[in-house]
């Protein structure tokens, strides 16, 4: 009676086809998620129309016909006109340029700086952690808009400075979140296993820690993009963000508020809707991406796709 150490029953079913590269697996899982796919389409449309605003928009954003001011949505002006007779649709389209740019650049800054700080803080620990986290706490303790105002006030109002200000303000959120995740991932047995093989800190961080803290960071990123656009709106609203006549969604809301009593609802509705759509789409894509990056979720998605 000879006992084999293993037999075919034990082996997993060997995959029939050669496996796809990992990025394609991730992408196909992302596309199979209907909500995420819808979010991506909306985002793509928004970005395209921002890039090709000159071609897409029916009018220039400065084009005003004072005679046809405050006109409700109609054949010539689908979204109506503002107090200077400018086409709201065109201004929403051109506004996407500023708003999306502010969101992307500001969050890009906080994502990179915040993640770096969180990684160092969580992985190294000790006095470095204490210094970095106390600094973040100080930043965190100010109300977001107040801090942004202070930064813009010091740097003089401009689009670039608005983006920097928002980036700085959001950094602690990322730093704190990443640090928390790193603290738990650092203690995982697979990190210890990697160290036992002789892996350097850099390798452990890039191969094991970063991918495993990515999920909360992605969710945070999509949420922050939304908040960044709203913060830009708040700053513009206070007159220290984007300077007129450049259109930005926040700035448009600011202008519109004075005309709400006169019944010009379209002036606030459409930029508001644009912000809402963007935020929504970003969250859908963020959630989808988080699931698609998780191998376990991914195989659930794929098995669902097959049956």
């Amino acid at each position, binding site marked *: 009676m000879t*006992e084999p*150490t293993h*037999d075919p*029953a*034990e082996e997993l079913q060997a995959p029939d086809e050669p496996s796809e590269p990992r990025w394609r697996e991730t992408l196909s899982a992302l596309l199979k998620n209907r909500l995420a796919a819808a979010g991506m389409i909306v985002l793509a449309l928004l970005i395209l129309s921002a890039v090709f605003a000159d071609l897409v928009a029916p009018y220039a954003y400065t084009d005003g016909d004072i005679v046809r001011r405050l006109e409700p949505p109609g054949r010539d002006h689908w979204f109506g006109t503002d107090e200077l007779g400018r086409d709201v649709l065109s201004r929403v389209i051109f506004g996407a340029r500023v708003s999306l740019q502010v969101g992307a650049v500001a969050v890009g800054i906080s994502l990179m700086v915040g993640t770096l700080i969180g990684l160092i803080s969580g992985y190294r620990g000790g006095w470095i952690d204490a210094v970095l986290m106390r600094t973040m706490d100080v930043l965190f303790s100010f109300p977001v808009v107040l801090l942004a105002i202070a930064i813009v006030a010091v740097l003089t109002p401009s689009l670039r400075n608005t983006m920097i200000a928002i980036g700085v303000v959001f950094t602690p959120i990322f730093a704190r979140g990443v640090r928390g995740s790193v603290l738990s991932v650092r203690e995982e047995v697979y990190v210890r296993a990697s160290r036992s093989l002789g892996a350097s800190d850099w390798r452990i961080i890039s191969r094991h820690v970063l991918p495993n803290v990515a999920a909360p960071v992605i969710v945070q990123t999509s949420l922050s993009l939304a908040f960044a656009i709203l913060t830009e709106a708040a700053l513009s609203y206070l007159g220290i963000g984007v300077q007129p006549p450049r259109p930005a969604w926040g700035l448009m809301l600011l202008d519109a508020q004075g005309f709400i009593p006169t019944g010009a609802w379209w002036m606030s509705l459409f930029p508001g809707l644009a912000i809402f759509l963007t935020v929504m789409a970003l969250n859908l894509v963020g959630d989808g991406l988080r699931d698609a990056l998780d191998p376990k979720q991914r195989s659930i998605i794929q098995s*669902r796709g097959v049956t």
Partner: protein
Amino acid sequence: MSGAPEPTPEHDDSTDAEVVLSVRDLEVSFGTKRGRAEVVRGLDYDLHRGETLAIVGESGSGKSVSTLALTKLIPIPPGRGTGTAHLGDTDLISLSEAELVHVRGQRIGFVFQDPMTSLNPVHTIGRQLTEGMRHHLGLSEAAARDRAVELLAKVGIPSPEDRLGDYPHQFSGGMRQRVVIAIGLSCDPEVLIADEATTALDVTTQAQIIDLIAELQADLGMAVVWITHDLGVVAGIADRVLVMYAGEVVEQADAPELLSRPRHPYTVGLLASLPVLGDTERGDLAAIPGLPPPPTSLPPGCGFYPRCSFRSDERCATERPPLREVVAGHLVRSFYEVPEEQSRRASAATRIAIEPPDVRDEGVA
């Protein structure tokens, strides 16, 4: 589901004691993404007063689920349980949730594997201990408290009055499991179900807990269902043993008979693969190849067929073997029995070459 005639495992060569729990045709399944998972496939047994029945199996064999299902401690749905389970005159399976509340903890006590998670960390153990007694037995606060002190003393917790106000984290693992046992016993249950009750404990603590349950059983006359994967524990405490594999009983016998003359290929394989203290052989262990089948795609014939080293013909692959009585009180679900010689060779009794050291009190100052 099964068309095979199942012999009723009436068997009372060891005891004429009354039957406290009688389970028939118990089937439990779950709806999963990969289809219906048949976790328990037709289970029959009788539990007599004062008896210890061991249910042995590996993870996924259905050993835990089969007892949890008795009082619907599994989520239903997605779970589904059918069959009958008579506790005295009451069929547990037909009871409503509201009626079951009076069975759980009162007529059937539970002791689970992990004493840390089966106690609520935010309540004192006094409160957790008296809660059930006040609810089930209608005791006053003072009476419940007195009984709690008595129970803690009984399970061997020193100065019990002082410890009623303590929280679970203030106890060591072994002491926590004693508290859990005290809770399990608090309403004088007819049946105590110990589900891997000592698995998370160290061996010296395990020995304490096993002794404790045996003493309490002798005192109180309750029946114990001991669910475990450890055949050593079974050898020490069980009167009768059910061996489960892939959701069904593959072998059932009195403990001494089952462990010295196992007849089902799985039981033999399990025993042979076990390292045994005092066995001087150092070669490869006779491991069972492969893995147990997932409950969502069980083999059409014998559940153990894919891993069996005694399988012989088409029948094993295509026909589900019935549980048949091969000698009085010894039931085997297999078309072919393991020959005596191989069976004996697998048993610990034959493999032990060095006797356990004599530890009687010599040399004690």
